[in-house]
């Protein structure tokens, strides 16, 4: 149990996906203009990261791993297999959502495709393999990573809503000031450094 808690703390605070691991920077910068969109993104990321962890773990261990169904070491196919599975899975969900729950689709679904081509999802899948997590750990890790992403995104959106109305020098307007802010936020997060050893 403590193992899981430490895993969560580590993924959320200490090794925050965005602020210390640099994964998922594009959506972090891209959808942090308005709180509404940011929250939508968070919901979508929570869902996709958790389920992608599960799906890719299964694919890896059943098809690619030498101890799996195939029985051959196909681990080098992980990149291509993961991206294929994630992309299809996400699109499947999006299609289903669009049809069955248009309202939810309007608030969360539009972010789904965005996440496909995003380092966070692919990153979590690869890290699960690299860190040799068990299935349950992988799912928890995916979820915690998403929480970490959401936390960073929500805080950052709050900051950006303030900064977007500030008067930075012209050269800094736009992404530049957002990056500096993200840097300062990441600096503050260094307070959690090495908290879970």
């Amino acid at each position, binding site marked *: 149990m403590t193992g899981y808690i430490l895993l969560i703390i580590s993924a959320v605070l200490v090794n925050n996906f965005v602020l210390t691991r640099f994964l998922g920077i594009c959506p972090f910068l891209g959808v942090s203009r308005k709180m509404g969109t940011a929250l939508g993104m968070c919901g979508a990321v929570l869902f996709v990261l958790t389920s992608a962890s599960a799906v890719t773990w299964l694919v890896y261990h059943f098809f690619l791993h030498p101890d799996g169904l195939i029985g051959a070491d196909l681990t080098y196919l992980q990149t291509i297999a993961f991206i294929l599975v994630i992309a299809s899975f996400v699109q499947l969900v999006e299609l289903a959502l669009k049809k069955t729950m248009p309202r939810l689709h309007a608030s969360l679904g539009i972010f789904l495709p965005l996440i496909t081509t995003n380092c966070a999802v692919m990153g979590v899948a690869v890290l699960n393999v690299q860190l040799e997590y068990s299935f349950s750990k992988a799912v928890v890790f995916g979820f915690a990573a998403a929480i970490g992403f959401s936390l960073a995104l929500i805080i950052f959106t709050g900051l950006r*809503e*303030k900064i*977007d*109305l*500030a*008067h930075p020098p012209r050269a800094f307007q736009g992404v530049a000031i957002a990056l500096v802010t993200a840097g300062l936020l990441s600096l503050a997060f260094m307070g959690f450094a090495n908290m879970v050893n």
Partner: protein
Amino acid sequence: MRVTRALRKLRGSIHPQYFKGLTSDCPITEMPIPQKLYLSMSQHLGAPAKPIVAKGDVVTRGQCIAEATGYISVPIHAPVCGKIVDIDSAATPAGTMAPRVVLETDPDNTESTTMSPLSDWQDRPQEELITRISEAGVAGMGGAGFPTHVKLSPPSDKPIDTIIINGAECEPYLTADHRLMIEHSKGIADGIRMMCYILNVKSVFVAIEENKPEAIQAMQDALANAEKIDATVCILPTEYPQGAEKQQIAVTTGREVPSGGLPMDVGCVVENVGTVLAIAEAIEKGIPLTQRVTTVTGHIVKSPQNVLAPLGTTYADLVSFCGGLTAEAAKVISGGPMMGMAQPNLDVATTKTTSGLVLLEQSRVHIYRALPCIGCGRCLEACPMNLVPAAISYAVEGGDYDRAESLNILDCIECGCCAFVCPSSRPLVQHFKLAKPKIILKSRQAADAKGAK
């Protein structure tokens, strides 16, 4: 007759320097009729009145010269006899352009047309009295100048149970209401009785700040033997903006006007003491509203005083009646320093809502040299509506009107407490005044678009 204290404290408030001593002991003096009167057709809130006289017409005192153009509108009457010499367009004290009638006065002619006095008002139907108030051109004299007959005819689903007479006069410098309550307490008491009759209400609060003991005494005396009504003189602490309608309702009755609502939503009607007096005059004597008491004050005014002047008197005339200035004025404010409007020159003329004329010398003029908001939170403390002025103005400044709206900018009563305390000297109220019309327009357009679909 009872005397009470405020039920609760104002949520936010400030204590500016009052300077009421300049004029509080000066009895109301009537001013000689000036040569020309400039009567703006937009003396009240709502649609401007429409002139019914032509250039060259000769009019007598009390004659209607402009008629109301709708329900929320009141007519305008000639304050004195004279000749119409021009009908043009000019800026009102509020800075907007409106049609204007210029009257060359004939001080020697004391002829007057009045309406028939309704001294037996208690036996007449309420509708007749309301019509009379409307015909007499009575509009609120305490603030926005809202046509009084509208306030006195609430829709049937909004029963009124309390009348609040606003004698707070919380604005610094001004003492017109103060003097009115001292010198015309009887008339005011009559007006109160008439309002009670019209609205069929018993419970009346007369709200006065405690820095006006004489007025409190006078009103107590005048109401002492008022039969059939349940009058209370409510003594409020001296705090700005105690006189603002919503705040006053809260401190006297404990009720809170819902956001976007009106006093009548909580069963109240608030009238300024001047308005009440005007009601009494209109009904009992048949005299339309053609003059008002204006406090002409400031440290540079030679003899600051409370002047009873006909509507349309230019500020220049008022100043010269008060003996002129001892030093050059740097700012001229129509109204009090907290909510009044700065004037570009002295050519502007008084209206039904001109409660004061404050002239400031350079050293008393606050110059806005705005720094960014440093987030000190003082404006939050000061805001009687409990808004977050800092955040609203930040949003307006950044052009994010949607956020300003979601921060409830529309609840702001523009009292100025926030800007008064802001150490960054931010023009907070100006931001709100700038954004509010645009936001209202936008939501109206949105509503229209919705309706169209």
